[in-house]
């Protein structure tokens, strides 16, 4: 994240807008001669971030164009950004048109995952603009700023008024925006092989509107993209059509490390307009006709010969492989080693457990697609749906060996991908630019589902050892956790690796991701280890790992919260009461109490007295967990039914609560909470990547199973909004609140604590028989 301290950009300002202006202001406001609109600059350069018009333009009809390098990721980010800008400028959000993610039309870049850092930039730009507009209106109307007010973009005072549009006319506001930060670039010294991925940061502390005066934020304005998505008007990343464009289908090796011996022959009688394109291990078939490309690629694939390769451990051996790895020093440590060791040694009782999860997938419903136009003049344009356009741009420039100024990335919406492209690449863009360069024509590359599930990065499997010391009062005196996984930062571009072209070079490592919720547990030691991805080296793809929704914390919180549930049971205390005994954080306590009430939870230790491991009747169970993330406080309560003899679990109801500071849009937050629960239940019950020694084998929806509508529980939401804690991240993390609560509910029903997810039928059956 760009902004380490979640609260700093959003504290209630000391200065008021008017107060600042009375002090003489901090900026010069003047009209400049109309210049080229940002984005019309020659070549592929990005708009100058120090110019206001690169961020925000006020049109004479009082509409506003806002530009951000961040993108919509399906959670409503575009709507939230529009609300933030509208609030600061005192305009309706419908007046705002957002331009997102195009590197030649937007100034900043950065991860699209973080609302708070993206919103911080737009909020400051809007606040600077607001000050400038008030100053201009004061001059135009001859009225002091202190007597002006703004409603719906119209500045009024002493019964005179003028709109923003009239003030600015057809000119540009000449306002300098202070920014810092480095552009994205491939950087072999960096952990993920890239630097500058945060994007630029707008500096300064312009006075922001106090939350107590909010009129737009906190209201459920509709999401701007919805009508186009519902009527078929939306142009998606898969809808790019260029003159002379070729369709490509890739012919992938049989394993994640095979080398090409010979590409299959193309039957020109059957496929007269198709061509086979080969560069090292990158093999594709291109054709002006998509159906011909599909069939010709199948034909070429069946005749292609590749070397054998078996660099993977096989998914059934994953835990063993992680256990056997020589880890060396941890890549991340937090806590007090000596005190924890001492507390564990002195404890009246200790509890230890080992939790684990296999590889899972981002698994977008739409396989990745990209279109590229690489021209003989050296210009490169890529149309795609990467969530970090500037990061991808830097990677493409690096792979093709062209200056970054020659590369333009254009962003369009596509299927949700949940963090897979946070570092830029992990799609078809590499294939597309290489094929366009080789053919001299625009090329559209559509991955198949099987290709997407087999060749994209995954969220790596992990194991965690965690132990706690219980004192004589049954309180936890110390916690020690050790997390092992492979690296989650491998955004190398598949096409570049296969073609033997340069790419980013990530380093093994991991990070302590939990935000510690239990301030009464002072003695804690968290250590994390990240090993290289299995089967990955500079010339092989292997099992690449990339972060996925609520990364790191999803995994580490599963272990911590499962331990809390097991410890509560050991202490004979209700699991929610046990959590309350270990925190004094009032925000956490508030959301725990509100969610507990909403779920109708009556205190009782787990497992329930009716718990049993056999039988054909469904046994009810319930479980809870909490999480603090990104200035947000979460609680989840699962109610499930376990039918032991058939090994089935049904999640009946899930109650989820959040306190995330000021809620931007309650309705969309509710939608994100409920949909996040669906993804979390899916992860808890079903999701697992399988692989043999050479390839991923879970490559269709019948082998990589995700939750269906019939399996979706009743979901109840609880929201607490407050004006004194800034904004929190609300749309991301609901998924991570589910698996620990569901595992705890399984324990409540059966008396057996599941230390692995997913809780598939075969795992549940073996667990209950053991």
């Amino acid at each position, binding site marked *: 994240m760009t902004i380490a301290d979640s609260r700093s950009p959003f504290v209630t300002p000391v200065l008021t807008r008017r107060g600042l202006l009375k002090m003489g202001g901090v900026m010069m406001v003047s009209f400049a001669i109309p210049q080229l609109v940002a984005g019309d600059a020659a070549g592929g350069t990005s708009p100058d971030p120090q110019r206001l018009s690169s961020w925000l333009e006020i049109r004479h009809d009082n509409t506003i164009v806002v530009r951000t390098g961040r993108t919509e*990721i*399906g*959670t*409503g980010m575009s709507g939230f950004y529009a609300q933030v800008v509208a609030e600061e400028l005192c305009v309706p959000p419908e007046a705002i048109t957002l331009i997102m993610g195009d590197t030649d039309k937007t100034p900043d870049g950065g991860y699209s995952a973080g609302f708070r850092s993206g919103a911080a930039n737009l909020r400051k730009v809007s606040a600077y603009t607001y000050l400038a507009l008030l100053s201009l209106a004061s001059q135009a109307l001859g009225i002091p700023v202190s007597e002006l007010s703004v409603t719906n973009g119209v500045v009024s005072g002493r019964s005179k008024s003028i709109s923003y549009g009239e003030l600015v006319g057809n000119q540009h506001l000449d306002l300098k925006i202070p920014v810092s930060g480095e552009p994205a670039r491939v950087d072999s010294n960096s952990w993920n092989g890239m630097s500058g991925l945060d994007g630029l940061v707008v500096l300064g502390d312009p006075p922001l509107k106090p939350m107590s005066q909010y009129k737009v934020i906190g209201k459920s304005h*509709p*999401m701007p*993209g*919805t*009508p186009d*998505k*519902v*009527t*078929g008007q*939306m*142009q*998606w990343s*898969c*809808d790019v*059509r260029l003159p002379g464009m070729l369709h490509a289908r890739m012919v992938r090796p049989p394993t994640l490390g095979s080398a090409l011996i010979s590409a299959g022959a193309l039957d020109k009688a059957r496929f007269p307009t198709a061509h086979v394109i080969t560069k090292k291990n990158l093999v594709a078939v291109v054709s002006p006709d*998509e*159906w011909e490309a599909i069939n010709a690629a199948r034909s070429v694939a069946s005749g292609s010969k590749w070397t054998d390769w078996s660099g993977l451990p096989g998914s059934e051996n994953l835990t063993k492989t992680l256990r056997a790895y020589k880890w060396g020093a941890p890549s991340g440590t937090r806590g007090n080693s000596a005190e924890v060791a001492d507390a564990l040694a002195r404890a009246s009782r200790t509890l230890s457990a080992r939790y684990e999860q296999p590889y899972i997938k981002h*698994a*977008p*419903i*739409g*396989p990745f697609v990209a279109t590229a136009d690489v021209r003989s003049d050296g210009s490169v344009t890529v149309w795609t749906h990467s969530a970090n356009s500037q990061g991808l741009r830097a990677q493409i420039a690096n792979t093709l060996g062209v200056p970054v100024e020659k590369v333009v990335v254009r962003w369009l*919406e*596509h*299927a*949700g991908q*949940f963090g897979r492209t946070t570092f830029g690449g992990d799609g078809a863009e590499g294939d597309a630019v290489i094929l366009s360069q080789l053919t001299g024509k625009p090329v559209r590359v*559509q991955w*198949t*589902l099987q290709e997407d599930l087999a060749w994209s990065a995954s969220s790596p499997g992990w194991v965690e050892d965690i132990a706690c010391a219980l004192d004589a009062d049954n309180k936890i005196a110390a916690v020690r956790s050790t997390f092992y996984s492979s690296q989650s930062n491998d955004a190398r571009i598949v096409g570049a690796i296969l073609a033997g072209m340069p790419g980013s070079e990530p380093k093994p490592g991991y990070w302590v991701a939990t935000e510690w919720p239990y301030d009464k547990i002072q003695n804690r030691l968290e250590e994390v280890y990240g090993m290289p991805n299995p089967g990955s080296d500079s010339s092989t793809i292997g099992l690449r790992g990339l972060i996925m929704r609520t990364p790191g914390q999803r995994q580490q919180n599963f272990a911590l919260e499962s331990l809390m549930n097991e410890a509560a049971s050991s202490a004979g205390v209700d699991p929610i009461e046990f959590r309350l005994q270990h925190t004094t954080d009032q925000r956490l306590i508030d959301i725990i109490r509100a969610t507990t009430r909403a779920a109708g939870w009556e205190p009782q230790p787990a497992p329930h007295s009716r718990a049993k491991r056999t039988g054909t009747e469904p046994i009810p169970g319930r479980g809870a967990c909490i999480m603090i993330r990104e200035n947000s406080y979460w609680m989840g309560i699962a109610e499930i039914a376990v039918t032991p003899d058939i090994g089935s679990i049904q999640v009946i109801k899930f109650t989820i609560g959040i306190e995330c500071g000021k809620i931007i849009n309650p*309705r*969309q937050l509710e*939608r*994100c909470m*409920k*949909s*996040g*629960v*669906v*993804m979390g239940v*899916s992860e808890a019950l079903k999701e697992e990547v399988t692989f043999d020694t050479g390839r991923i084998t879970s490559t*269709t*929806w*019948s082998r990589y199973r*995700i*939750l*269906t*509508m*019939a*399996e*979706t529980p009743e*979901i109840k939401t609880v929201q607490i909004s407050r004006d004194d804690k800034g904004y929190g991240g609300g749309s991301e993390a609901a998924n991570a609140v589910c698996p620990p609560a569901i595992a705890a509910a399984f324990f409540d029903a059966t008396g057996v604590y599941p230390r692995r997810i997913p809780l598939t039928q075969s795992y549940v059956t073996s667990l209950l028989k053991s």
Partner: protein
Amino acid sequence: MANELTLSVNGAQHIVSVSREMPLLYVLRNELKLSGPRFGCGIAQCGACSVLVNGEEVRSCIAPVSSVVENQVTTIEGLPAVWAAKKGLSPSDVAKSLHPVQQAWIDEQVPQCGYCQSGMMIAAVELLSKNPNPTVAQIKDAFTNKPPSPHLCRCGTYVAIIDAVQRAAEAMKA
């Protein structure tokens, strides 16, 4: 081999010159430039490509184009006209109105990424044509157990879809 085929899509006749076995999806997208139906899995496992053929849901990613000749194909782009015809609306009203399922998808704010939602709305229209007042259990059953596969949403909008189907059912009774 390429043949001239006459298709009826969203109420209009189109003559296309494509091979008879080409899946309908590629004809709709590449020949007719419709972006409603989308490529999801290509093997009838997700529902992102669904269209109506004579009012029945069909997975266009596997249906050969020759199988729909002489049938009425409807994508989400054509849903407003379907509703307008049913209600006897004037041409000027057609331009302004959406199918109640589409309106419900907006009102209930269903889409997140939205990639699967074209197929979801198609499934909803078919369901409501057969069962104008479905229970939650019946909605879940229709979107999950009807062959060839469940309609999948990775963003997890199932609850919003259930809300929207029920809202649309109410609107269509009026």
